[in-house]
């Protein structure tokens, strides 16, 4: 089904929307950059520039010099914002403590997310970063945008913000770092009305949904991740912008089990494309791999001579469920045992392809916290049809959103609620039966309990009568 946007899509043309001229954008020389000296003494920042890795300090210095050379009326906040940020960071290094005050009332009218307030507590010393708010911009699906779009966003942030950006934040948003409160509404207006662009999520909201590149470029994608991400982003606008959850909630969409957006590790509700029929095998292409006509892994590791391709060693013996073998010169697969690890398909993409009965697996409860240990999501719904308008998927989402906000504690993620109340409760909420695969090992899994109605005789059995026949 062809993609149909919910509203007419503008084609952004940088030449029509640009704020800065080419001369303003390229307003310093390499020589000037070498000679650049920050207005504050920043020895530790300078030290961070050394070593083999690209440094944000080097980027900041370029931006600081660029702002020094812009005319006064070409920036809506102080030109020194980058230099003051580096200066304050040096002070934090010296003193071993932060001088940012995080959070607050700031935001754009009607939205409870997308803006994260930040203030300096050294405002007299570093006045240009007295306010240093972050804005999160909802990235286009799969981070698939034109350079015209990116240039427009960069110009806007240079004009009304610090010019410093982070592409992309962990959730995928375009992160614009550092502006003053009075610039928030004008930026939001420009983004919404001119660039047709919304803010992303923050706080106790549905966070910006993220998807892999999906069918746009990838032959393995079992679902149209971009269409699904777009639909759920639009459908759940209220949850994205008006916080009423106990804590953050993330959707991520992977087109296949390779998991290029790592939904299994990073989202409360992970959608992973899968198939329920058999892996498609082209036996001639299998022979071409064995014969060396096709490079394994699509030539991805061709920089080194790994020797002749050995299908036994490189594919069959690496299958985690040992469900592959050669028979009369043909590759055979016991598809019932396949766990969708994707290794064989990744190694021989011209010979093996995912099946054609495609849909989505749904997993719950991952989180990737900074301070605590990471938690992977739990495969709960192995297969579900996945076609627009995704009514069956929305039904599942809403069952979760009736349970978690009602019973989750403040700042408790879905995965923690599942741990606290048990997988059996999750299954009851969803109205689905438990699967043997949910039990890690017999008799020791704490999550699945018998219910009285499942046991012949219920709990009313006389234990003394039982013991008279079973002494131990």
């Amino acid at each position, binding site marked *: 089904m062809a993609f149909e946007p919910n509203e007419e899509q503008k084609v952004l043309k940088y030449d029509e929307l640009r704020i800065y001229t080419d001369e303003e954008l390229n307003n310093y020389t390499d020589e000037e950059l070498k000679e650049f000296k920050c207005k504050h003494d920043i020895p530790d920042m300078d030290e961070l520039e050394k070593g083999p890795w690209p440094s944000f300090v080097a980027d900041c210095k370029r931006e600081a010099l660029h702002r020094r050379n812009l005319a006064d009326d070409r920036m809506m906040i102080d030109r020194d914002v980058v230099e003051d940020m580096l200066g304050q960071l040096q002070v934090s290094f010296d003193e071993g403590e932060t001088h940012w005050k995080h959070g607050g009332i*700031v935001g754009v009218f009607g939205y409870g997310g997308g803006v994260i307030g930040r203030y300096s507590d050294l405002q007299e010393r570093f006045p240009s970063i007295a306010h240093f708010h972050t804005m999160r911009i909802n990235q286009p699906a799969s981070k698939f945008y034109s350079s015209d779009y990116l240039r427009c966003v960069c110009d806007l942030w240079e004009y009304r913000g610090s010019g410093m950006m982070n592409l992309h934040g962990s959730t995928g948003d375009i992160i614009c770092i550092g502006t003053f409160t009075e610039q928030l509404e004008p930026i939001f207006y420009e983004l919404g009305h001119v660039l047709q662009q919304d803010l992303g999520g923050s706080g106790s909201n549905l966070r910006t949904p993220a998807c892999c590149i999906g069918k746009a470029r990838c032959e393995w994608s079992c679902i149209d991740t971009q269409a699904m991400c777009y639909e759920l982003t639009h459908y759940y606008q209220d949850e994205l912008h008006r916080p009423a959850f106990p*804590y953050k909630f993330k959707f991520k969409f992977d087109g296949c089990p390779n998991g290029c957006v790592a939904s299994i590790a990073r989202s409360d509700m992970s959608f992973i494309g899968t198939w329920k029929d058999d892996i498609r095998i082209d036996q001639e292409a299998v022979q071409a791999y064995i014969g060396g006509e096709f490079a394994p892994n699509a030539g991805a590791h061709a920089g080194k001579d790994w020797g002749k391709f050995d299908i036994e060693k490189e594919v069959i013996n690496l299958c985690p469920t040992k469900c592959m073998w050669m028979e009369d010169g043909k590759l055979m697969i016991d598809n019932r045992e396949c766990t969708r690890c994707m290794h064989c398909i990744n190694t021989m993409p011209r010979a093996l392809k995912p099946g054609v009965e495609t849909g989505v697996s749904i997993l719950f409860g991952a989180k990737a916290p900074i301070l605590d240990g990471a938690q992977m999501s739990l495969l709960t719904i192995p297969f579900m049809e996945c076609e627009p308008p995704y009514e069956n998927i929305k039904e599942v989402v809403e069952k979760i959103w009736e349970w978690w906000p009602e019973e989750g504690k403040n700042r408790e993620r879905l995965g923690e609620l599942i741990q606290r109340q048990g997988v059996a409760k999750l299954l009851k909420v969803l109205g689905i039966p438990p699967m043997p695969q949910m039990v890690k090992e017999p008799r020791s899994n704490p999550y699945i309990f018998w219910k009285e109605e499942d046991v012949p005789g219920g709990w009313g059995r006389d234990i003394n009568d039982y013991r008279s026949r079973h002494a131990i």
Partner: protein
Amino acid sequence: MEDIKEAILAFAEKSKKSKFYFNDIQKAVQKVIPDAKAKPIKKAATALINEEKLIYFSTGSSTMYGLKGRGQTEDH
């Protein structure tokens, strides 16, 4: 809707803390109106935000609500 809004404002004025989670609002409303569901409560809270009687307070990772004029409710 109006009775839920009144219950929210009454809670926001009397609560010990000047900032509170949505869950706290929900529990307070359900004490007064036991059959009130989460969705209408959220709609009422959103309406109060739009009327500029309530404000959002965000730490970046989680969001709280507050009564405008009580505690810290302006940019600083």
